[in-house]
């Protein structure tokens, strides 16, 4: 993927930026601030009509589908590797894929900045990390481009791709993202920053500190909450006293939007609108995608202790990958043969990635103390 350096040593500082003008803009009309309620995800129907609104070329829709299947298949393979003892620890994003792919396609992945969290396999794949990269990380190989085998899998990062490296601490990425967005605004790079997190993270102080700062300075960014209803075991009802994380946006002076995270195109449209708003200088959006996590929190968790498995089954029946597949079939963009071909290519890519990672060397123990500081 082509990348453009965003650091220009001799850049001129842009002075168009006026803090304090927060509510002077039409986009923050109080009428625009409220969340958009959605139907109960279990009963909501997906209106095929929204395809017509997509304004997306058939080829883009097929790429979205390919990205969905690629993420799901890779995620499943990684989970299986854990279950048969080949990968000591993994974390899965199964169930979140449509939300993540919809978001990824709405941004400029050759310019914008992604500040992800650990459940963003699909988003980071769509942003340019490859199955081979992911497998090197899962197997903690020296060539793992995200951390050289230093971090647990799921801690994505790449300076080349503008994916900011993250920690395991919940919500610390949010203030960092505001700084990235502040620099983009000050330097006039035109970049939009998207930062992702779960609904549990919205209880952390860093969520508040980041949203507040972003609102004050009308930063070009998107707070993308992937609300899967559980923070490990704690249900949403014990995490927030309101129905939607997005409702909190009103307290920060920017719009909050709720979207059905199983509906890829609905997410795409919502994120595209937020990107357009940010790009033209009208500030951030708190976007909440209602999703469901199919797996336990991580490979070390057992969700039977806290989730009714009938609920899991019901949500799996509304699989966002299948929903999108059905839409494209209905539109005549996919048929059995095309689907089989896509799956076959992806399986081969994942097989190759797995074999390459298995054959790749582990880190040299002598390198454990490198890179604590520059030059070391």
């Amino acid at each position, binding site marked *: 993927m082509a*990348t453009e*350096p*965003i*650091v*220009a*040593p001799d*850049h*001129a*500082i842009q*002075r168009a*930026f006026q*803090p*304090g003008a927060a509510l002077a803009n039409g986009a923050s009309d109080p009428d625009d601030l409220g969340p958009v309620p959605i139907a109960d995800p279990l009963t909501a129907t997906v209106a095929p009509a929204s395809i017509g609104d997509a304004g997306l070329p058939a080829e883009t829709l097929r790429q979205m589908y390919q990205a969905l299947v690629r993420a799901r298949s890779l995620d499943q393979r990684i989970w299986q590797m854990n279950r048969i003892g080949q990968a000591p620890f993994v974390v899965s994003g199964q169930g979140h894929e449509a939300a993540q792919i919809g978001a990824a396609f709405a941004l400029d992945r050759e310019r914008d*900045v992604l*500040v992800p969290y650990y459940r963003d396999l699909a988003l980071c794949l769509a942003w340019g990390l490859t199955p081979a990269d992911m497998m090197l990380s899962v197997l903690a190989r020296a060539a*793992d*481009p*995200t*951390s*050289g085998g*230093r*971090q647990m899998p799921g*801690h994505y*990062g*790449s*300076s*080349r791709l*503008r*994916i*900011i*490296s993250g*920690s395991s*601490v919940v919500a*610390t990425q*949010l*203030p*960092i993202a*505001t*700084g*990235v*967005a*502040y*620099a*983009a605004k*000050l*330097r006039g*790079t035109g*970049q939009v920053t998207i930062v992702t997190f779960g609904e549990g993270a919205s209880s952390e*102080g*860093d969520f508040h*500190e*980041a949203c*507040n*700062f972003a609102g*004050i300075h009308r930063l070009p960014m998107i707070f993308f909450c992937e609300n899967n209803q559980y923070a490990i075991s704690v249900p949403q009802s014990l995490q927030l006293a309101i129905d939607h994380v997005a409702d909190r946006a009103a307290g920060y002076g920017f719009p909050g939007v709720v979207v059905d995270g199983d509906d890829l195109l609905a997410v795409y449209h919502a994120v595209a609108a937020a990107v357009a708003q940010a790009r033209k200088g009208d500030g951030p959006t708190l976007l909440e995608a209602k999703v469901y996590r199919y797996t336990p929190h991580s490979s070390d968790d057992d969700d039977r202790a806290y989730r009714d498995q009938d609920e899991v089954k019901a949500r799996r029946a509304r699989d966002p990958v299948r929903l999108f597949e059905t839409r494209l079939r209905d539109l005549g963009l996919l048929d059995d043969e095309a689907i089989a071909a896509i799956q076959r290519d992806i399986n081969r890519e994942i097989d190759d990635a797995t074999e390459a990672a298995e054959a790749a060397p582990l880190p040299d123990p002598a390198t454990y103390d*490198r*890179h*604590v*500081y*520059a030059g070391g």
Partner: protein
Amino acid sequence: MVQAPERTASAPATTDPDGRDETSMTFVDAIQGTLRDVMRADDRVVILGEDVGRRGGVFRVTADFLEEFGDDRVIDTPLAESGIIGSAIGMALNGLLPIAEIQFLDFIAPAMDQIMNEAARLRYRSNNDFHCPIVIRAPFGGGVHGALYHSQSIEAMFVHTPGLKVVVPATPADARGLLLAALRDEDPVLYLEHKKMYRSIRGPVPAGDEIVPLGVARLVREGTDATIITYGLMVHEATLAATAVSEETGASIEIIDLRSLKPLDERAILDSARKTGKVLVVTEANRPCSVASEVAALVGEEAFAYLDAPVMRVAAPDVPAMPFSPPLEQAFMVGAGQIGTALRRLVAF
């Protein structure tokens, strides 16, 4: 690609365009002049923190900066320490050179995640793909009737954090040189300013952009009979004590100002310990697991055969720093008297 800029911020040749005495200035003026110079020299430098703009900082370190540099580079942040450090990290990752001010070191706790888990680990955890060139300035230390929450010396917590650097200037010249070095460093640096020194310590400050390298201690005075190793305000207290004890006993006392707590100048510490054979380590901070403990352990491990006496520490007691009422504060605070008492014992050992 996303990456932090190269540290090239440099200061122009003159440090004091306002016509003050260039050869001697207060500690606070040395810091202010250096900050102003780097803000003028490099548009990527931004200052953020509570009250740094309109108020010019509660200690007036950034007085008039807002007017000169504008509110996009001198950012009065919300009252949110984690947000200050977190956004400074993000700014550094996208091409700026942020200097974050935490108003008092006592209030840095909400930012510990951002400092310890984010800034300090970014380079290591990304296998050198990212780095985090931020400077965090924070006033610290006691003796100013700041009571329990405007007096603390908690530098040891940061010295215990790999990936960070920690510096504590004791003179106006080092305030400038260390700040310039911190600004050019590619890794996060915590720059601690003893608030009692802001206006009580004066000294010569060289113009220009000569740095004081991080990790290099300063020989304050040369001696042969005993060594005091210390930093910050205690350098001045130790000097008073050493002068008094020398006059009384004729002992020749060496004093080393660490300047950098991380990295430590182990060679300077060990060379002096081996030379004098008697070491007193002084810190204003609570004694357990303090910087003094680390220096004492280092000397014990690496210079044991050269020692003529046990390594001694003078430090604050294991009591929260520090009470408000003057007699209580004085009882808590390490000073020249207490250092002198220990030094006499050490010299006589």
